[in-house]
């Protein structure tokens, strides 16, 4: 699987941006409002909808990429609720999960993030 694939390249870019936002939220550099605004500007759900049925290649790679988009999109829509219910620590878990997905893509696609 080539990193030159548009979908994978887009997802890696969005994933890295979301990871930065999670890091900055977890280290109190940005507020929850700024975090949600930042995620919204990534338009992950649009990309997910656009590439939902894309299956030209290794399913594992595309599913991992779609999981990254799903994670970003669900974080964006439920961040306030999650913060109210579980506090900031729940976002630490999201950071680790997103990092793991990106590392999996790195492994599958032979790319250096």
């Amino acid at each position, binding site marked *: 699987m080539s990193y030159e694939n548009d979908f994978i390249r887009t997802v890696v870019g969005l994933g890295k941006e979301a990871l930065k936002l999670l890091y900055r939220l977890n280290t109190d550099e940005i507020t929850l409002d700024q975090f949600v605004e930042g995620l*919204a500007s990534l*338009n*992950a*759900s*649009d990309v*997910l*909808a*656009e590439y*939902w*049925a894309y*299956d030209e290649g290794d*399913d*594992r790679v*595309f*599913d*991992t990429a*779609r*999981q990254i988009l*799903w*994670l970003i*999109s*669900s*974080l*964006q*829509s*439920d961040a306030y*609720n*999650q913060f109210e*219910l*579980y506090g900031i620590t*729940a*976002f630490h*878990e*999201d950071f680790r*999960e997103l990092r*793991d997905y990106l590392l999996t893509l790195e492994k599958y696609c032979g790319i250096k993030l």
Partner: protein
Amino acid sequence: MNADIDIEQFEAMKSKIREETLKAKGPMAMALKDIRHKIAILSGKGGVGKTVVTVNLASALKKKGYEVCIFDADLHGPAVPKALGLYGRMDVASEHDHPGHHDLRFNPLMSSNGIKVVSVASMWASQDQPIMWKGAHKMRAIRQLIASVNWGKADFLLVDLPPGTGDEVQTVMRSIPKLDGMIVVTTPQGLSTMVCTRAISAARELEVPLLGLVENMSSLKCSTCGAEMYPFGKGQGEKLARLMEIPFWGKIPIELEMGECVDEGVPFVDKKPDSDFSKAIDEIVSKLIVSLGDN
């Protein structure tokens, strides 16, 4: 202005107010607004046949003319699509209902007998794709998945819960608005009833009504002599129901062809409508309908 137009205007106003109230209650209430009854299927222990019971209850309800949806809340071991012969993926679209807000909308899969199904198994292309979601993500996924589906109008939403009382079960119990209650599935095994007690206590703790308890795999009929056998013991389900003060809705026998049916993706009640299993499921459905005051 005549009286008819006044009534029309009044109805339009009522529906607008209803819509606004639902919006205020959140996206899950909005998504489920046209579903009359929401029932979760619970068990403490794994392997008691919750999915088989759910799928067959859904089919039996469908046969009675009800519109039925199933939400497979087992994120790590989703099996409902396979049990209904569904292998495709759900369609998705991105909606922009107001500037800066993007929302995913899923269309459920539809089984050959007209049951709508939503499951994480129908989200990914690869059957081997592991779901590594953890705590908060699991709860978020359940809430978002329910809220993002175009459920449409239905009489029943059956939620197939994973075993135990973990994140998924608690999220369903806490988040589904106006959950009518739970059906508890156990087997006659002492171990199953013991674990089931904990799940029942969790439901009580969260003030979710317990509609009825069913004992699955209660007996096996010898195909040669017709004698009843009780490989997992006898009477424990009824005893548990009495002890926990839950209505006992019946015993579901083991059918030797069940495994084959699940693999084929055909509900047993559709394949063998005259079997003891199908009769037991029909009785449970009748009790469910009576308990909801729907008869």
